[in-house]
C-alpha cells in the first residue's frame, strides 16, 4: 500500500536523523573545553589519587569511543545515564522539569499561534491600510527583539518599578495555600510575565508568515475565478484563501511545537523558571554530559517527531502531496 510505504520510509528517515544527532551530541560535548571532574569536586587541592578515582567512577578514563559504546548500550535499555550534578537518573531530572516548561512554553505557543493567525489574516485582508503598516512594523520589531532583553524589560517595568507581578520563580518560596484556588492564583501571577514575554517573541513570526502566505494566495488566479463565480467576502476568505494559506503555517507550527519541550533558555533563565531551558543552562555550566545529552536527545526526538506528524498531516491537508 502506498500509505504504508510512505510511513515506513518517513519512519526510517526519522530514526536515521535521530541517530546522527545522537552521535553529534555525544562528541560535541566531549570536545568542549572544561573537565567535569574538576567542576564536580570543586576542591583545587584534591589529591591526584582521589581525582583518578572519581574519573574512573564516572568512566571518563576510557576512550571516547568506548564511552560512546556504553552510552548506546544503556540507551537501548532505556537508561539515559546518571546526572553528574544531580546524582540521579537523567530521565527523572528531565521529567521533573518538563511540566513547568510545558506549562510556560505551551501556553505561550498556543497564544501566539492563535493571535498570530488572527492578526496575520486581518493585516492581509486590510492590506496597505494604516492598521496593516502599523501591525507589520510591530511584528518585525517583535520578531527581531532578543528574548532576554524583552524579559529584563518586563521584569524592570512590571516587577521592580510597578511591583504588579512577582520577580521570579513559579511560586513564592515557603508559602502554603489554604485552597487550590489560592495556589492557582499564585501560579498565574508568576506565569504572567514569562508567558507574555515568550508570546511576544513568538508572535511576530506567525503574523508575518500568515500575512505573506495569505497575500500570496489572494493574488492567485483561482481567487479571481471564485470571485467571478459569485463567491464573495467572508466565504472567499474562508473557503478559498485560508485553506491554501494555512499550509506554510502548518510547517512552521510543527517545527515550533517540537521546540516547546526545549523550553526557552533565555526566558526561563531571566525569570528563574524551573523548567528544561534553565536545566540545560545549569547542565552546561556544570559540564554535566549525561544530562546535556539527555536533554538534547529529548528535544531532538520531539522536533523530529513533530516534523514526522507534519508530513503525515500534509498528506491529508494538501491533495497534491499524495502523487
Amino acid at each position: 500500500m502506498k500509505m504504508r510505504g510512505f510511513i515506513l520510509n518517513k519512519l526510517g528517515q526519522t530514526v536515521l536523523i535521530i541517530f546522527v544527532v545522537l552521535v553529534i551530541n555525544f562528541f560535541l560535548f566531549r570536545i568542549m573545553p572544561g573537565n567535569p571532574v574538576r567542576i564536580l569536586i570543586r576542591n583545587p587541592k584534591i589529591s591526584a589519587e582521589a581525582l583518578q578515582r572519581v574519573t574512573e567512577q564516572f568512566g571518563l578514563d576510557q576512550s571516547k569511543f568506548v564511552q560512546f559504546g556504553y552510552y548506546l548500550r544503556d540507551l537501548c535499555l532505556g537508561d539515559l545515564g546518571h546526572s553528574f550534578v544531580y546524582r540521579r537518573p537523567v530521565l527523572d531530572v528531565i521529567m521533573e522539569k518538563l511540566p513547568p516548561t510545558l506549562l510556560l512554553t505551551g501556553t505561550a505557543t498556543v497564544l501566539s499561534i492563535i493571535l498570530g493567525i488572527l492578526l496575520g489574516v486581518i493585516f492581509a485582508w486590510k492590506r496597505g491600510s494604516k492598521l496593516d503598516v502599523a501591525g507589520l512594523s510591530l511584528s518585525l520589531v517583535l520578531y527581531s527583539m532578543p528574548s532576554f532583553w524583552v524579559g529584563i524589560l518586563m521584569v524592570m517595568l512590571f516587577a521592580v518599578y510597578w511591583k504588579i507581578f512577582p520577580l521570579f520563580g513559579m511560586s513564592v518560596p515557603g508559602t502554603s495555600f489554604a485552597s487550590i484556588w489560592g495556589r492557582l492564583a499564585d501560579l498565574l501571577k508568576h506565569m504572567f510575565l514569562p508567558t507574555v514575554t515568550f508570546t511576544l517573541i513568538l508572535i511576530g513570526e506567525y503574523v508575518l508568515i500568515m500575512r505573506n502566505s495569505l497575500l500570496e494566495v489572494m493574488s492567485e488566479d483561482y481567487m479571481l475565478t471564485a470571485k467571478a463565480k459569485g463567491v464573495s467576502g467572508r466565504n472567499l476568505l474562508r473557503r478559498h484563501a485560508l485553506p491554501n494559506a494555512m499550509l506554510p503555517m502548518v510547517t512552521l507550527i510543527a517545527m515550533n511545537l517540537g521546540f516547546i519541550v526545549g523550553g526557552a533558555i533565555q526566558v526561563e533563565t531571566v525569570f528563574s523558571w524551573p523548567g528544561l531551558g534553565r536545566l540545560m543552562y545549569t547542565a552546561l555550566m556544570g559540564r554535566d554530559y549525561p544530562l546535556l545529552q539527555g536533554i538534547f536527545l529529548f528535544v531532538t526526538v520531539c522536533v523530529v517527531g513533530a516534523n514526522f506528524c507534519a508530513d503525515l498531516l500534509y498528506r491529508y491537508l494538501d491533495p497534491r502531496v499524495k502523487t
Partner: protein
Amino acid sequence: MTALVDVDQLEVHFTARAGLLRSMFGRETPVVRAVDGVSFTLGKGEILCLAGESGSGKTTTGKAILRLVEPTAGKVYYAGEDVRAYNRSKLRSFRQEAQIIFQDPYESLNPRQTVFNIVAEPLEVNNLCHSLAEKEERVARALIDAGLHNPQELFLRYPHELSGGQRQRLAIAGSLVLDPKFIVADEPVSMLDLSIRAGILKLMVDLRDQKGISYLFITHDLSLAWLVSDRIAIMYLGKIVELGSADTVIKDPLHPYTRALVSVIPAPRRKVITRQSLLKGETPDPVNVPPGCRFHPRCPVALPRCREEVPPYREVRPGHFAACHLING
C-alpha cells in the same frame, strides 16, 4: 445584432504601490494607465477578439468589464444596464450570467477543491439547487458540455490529477454550469499543447453556436483571432487602434501596428517578411505614455505630427475603425 455588452471609454489606472521610503518623502506615486479609454460593443452570440502584445491592457479590460478589477472611469453596459452601478443583488445575478476563463488552468483552479466542488460551487453560492441529485445532475451536464466524458468518475478527483487539457475543460465546465450568456476567455489556449488547442477552441465555438454565448476572446495570437472570431480589436498600450471584421482586419489592415502584426503571421508560401514591417523595440512603459500617437516611437511611417497630435479613433469604412493620421478617407 443587438449589443449585449457595450463598453464606453473604459479606463483602468493602477497606482503603483508606494514604497515606505517613497511615501515618507512624499513623492508622487506613478500611475499605470493599463486601460486608457477603450470602447467597443459585443453582440449576442458574437465572438470579439481583443488582440495585442502583452502589456497592452487586454486582460485588464476583460477583468474590468466583469468588475473583477474596478474601473477608474468610463461605462460598461450589460444588456443595457450600467455594470458599475450594480448593487449587491444585481451584481450577484450579473456574476451568474458573465463568466471568465483564465489562461493557465494550473493556476485558475483551487488545488484543494475536488472536481465536483469546483463545478458545483457557483450553484451553491447562488442557492440554485434544492437537492443533491439535482446538483449532481447539473455538474455532470456541465462536465459533459465541456467535453469531459464519464463525469461521475471525475467527481472526486483533484485538479492536479488531470492533464492540462482536462483542466482547461474543467475550468470551462465551472463557467458553464450557470448557463452564462457572456464569457471572457483570457488566452484560454495559450498554455496548452498545440494538439489540445483545436479541441478547446472548437468546444468554445460550438457552445456559441448551440447556446448563443457571447465571447470576449483575449489573445496575443492573431492567427488564432482570425480563426475563431467574428470581429477583431487590436489594442496597443491601453487603447484600441483598430477594430473591424476579422477578415478585413487581417486581410486589409489599416493601422501600421496591425500591419506589422499581420505581416508576421506565419503563412505557407509567404516569401520574405518586408524589413519595414518588423517592429523594433518593446511596448513603452504604461506609466510614461508617449505624447501624440502612442505608437509613434515604434511606427515605421510616423510623421512629425504623430508626435504631438493624438489621432482620432474614427470609422474609416463602415464597421472598420482605426486611429491613425496617415489613413485617408
